[in-house]
């Protein structure tokens, strides 16, 4: 039962496509990933928050981005480090990653695991056709998955594919006996580079963007990083700021 709605705690079976269209109970669209079994009720804290004093973060200069990254990692570690990989039903490394990615509905292609890839998106209307190009069937080299589909005759290709991904569980490699089932969060292929992401955001607008009078978008990192102190906003887009030099000369 790897996914759980962060809002209402609804648990989704492994590989469930339900959550692609939001939580059926509350409409929430954020899900956390549990490699092992979880109860409907929220699980125990992944890290023992009561017994363990909050450890200060490792000192790594003053890189805020690093800390944000670390915070994200910690959260991510905590929700993915439940050491019970044997409980997983599919037990496939690629399947786990795909399932985790499925919530973002990112139509990536993964030639290594065509079955699980297709199954994750089998709800989509074009899933049956998508399995063909994804499995590398660009012309004359039909992949196994396509053979399986055509062999089932009149059964809808997406259904057959989804079904086969469940039935095929036995033939999948065994679950790893130890270690994590999903990729390490720090794997550069697995997570976006937070530094680059932040830079992109910073480039989009400065500290405060006036969308319209009374409507503002704030760039919190920029507001935090800048020396100057914005003390007043004008409707015409000007700021009144206090600069640090002025403080020092006034400060006897």
């Amino acid at each position, binding site marked *: 039962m790897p996914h759980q709605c962060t809002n209402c705690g609804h648990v989704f079976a492994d590989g469930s496509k339900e959550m692609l269209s939001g939580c059926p109970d509350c409409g929430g669209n*954020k899900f956390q990933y549990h490699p092992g079994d979880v109860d409907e009720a929220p699980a125990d804290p992944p*890290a023992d928050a009561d017994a363990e004093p909050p450890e200060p973060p490792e000192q790594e200069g003053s890189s*805020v981005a690093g800390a*944000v990254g670390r915070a994200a990692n910690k959260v991510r570690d905590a929700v993915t480090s439940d050491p019970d990989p044997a409980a997983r039903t599919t037990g496939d490394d690629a399947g786990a990653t795909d399932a985790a990615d499925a919530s973002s509905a990112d139509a990536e292609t993964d030639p290594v695991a065509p079955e699980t890839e297709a199954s994750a998106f089998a709800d989509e209307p074009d899933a049956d056709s998508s399995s063909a190009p994804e499995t590398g069937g660009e012309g004359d080299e039909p992949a196994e998955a396509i053979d399986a589909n055509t062999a089932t005759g009149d059964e809808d290709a997406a259904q057959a594919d989804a079904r086969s991904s469940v039935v095929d569980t036995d033939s999948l490699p065994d679950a790893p006996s130890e270690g994590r089932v999903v990729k390490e969060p720090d794997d550069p292929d697995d997570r976006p580079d937070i530094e680059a992401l932040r830079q992109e955001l910073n480039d989009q607008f400065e500290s405060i963007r006036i969308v319209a009078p009374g409507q503002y978008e704030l760039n919190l990192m920029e507001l935090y990083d800048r020396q100057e*102190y914005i003390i007043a906003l004008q409707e015409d887009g000007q700021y009144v700021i*206090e600069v640090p030099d002025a403080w020092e000369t*006034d*400060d*006897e």
Partner: protein
Amino acid sequence: MGLFAELRDSISRVSASLFADDSEPKRIGIYGPPNAGKTTLANRIARDWTGDAVGPESHIPHETRRARRKENVEIKRDGKTVNIDIVDTPGVTTKVDYSEFLEHDMEKDEAVRRSREATEGVAEAMHWLREDVDGVIYVLDSTEDPFTQVNTMLIGIIESRDLPVLILANKTDLEGANIQRVSNAFPQHETIPLSALEGENMDEVYEKIAEYFG
């Protein structure tokens, strides 16, 4: 230039206190998203230990649009006395839109003004976080989803500055409060449930304040 003069004074005080010895009270910022109950908590602490309030509370988001300070709040726990300055900050958010105030029976002009002040308030809160706080009480509404960009970013900033931080899961008196969800979101920190409005579990809060910021 009244505002500037006032500001300079307060900056001077801040700078002076930066270079003061250890006997100066620690400045503890109360941070969190809008409407988490920061002012209610600040008032609760201030009333419990000084008899005064810090500022007005309301159900309308961004009621607090300027950081407010209550100095020399003396908290006694287990024979130990902790002296802190409480800074109640405006709720931090990435978007401020006057139209959300219109639902609260506000005229458009008033809503636009409030929205501008709220934006200035967020800028101020972020600035204080950079310069002027020695520790943070991070208040979350435990009926709301804690997995937000603002929360993750602020906690990250606080961690990068190595500030001691207490996470409070507020509004436990409300149905739908989910403390577990809050502690799941920030497992690297201790989460303390409370209702600042009802005064539930304040003993533990004071105990932890003394432990973390003493």
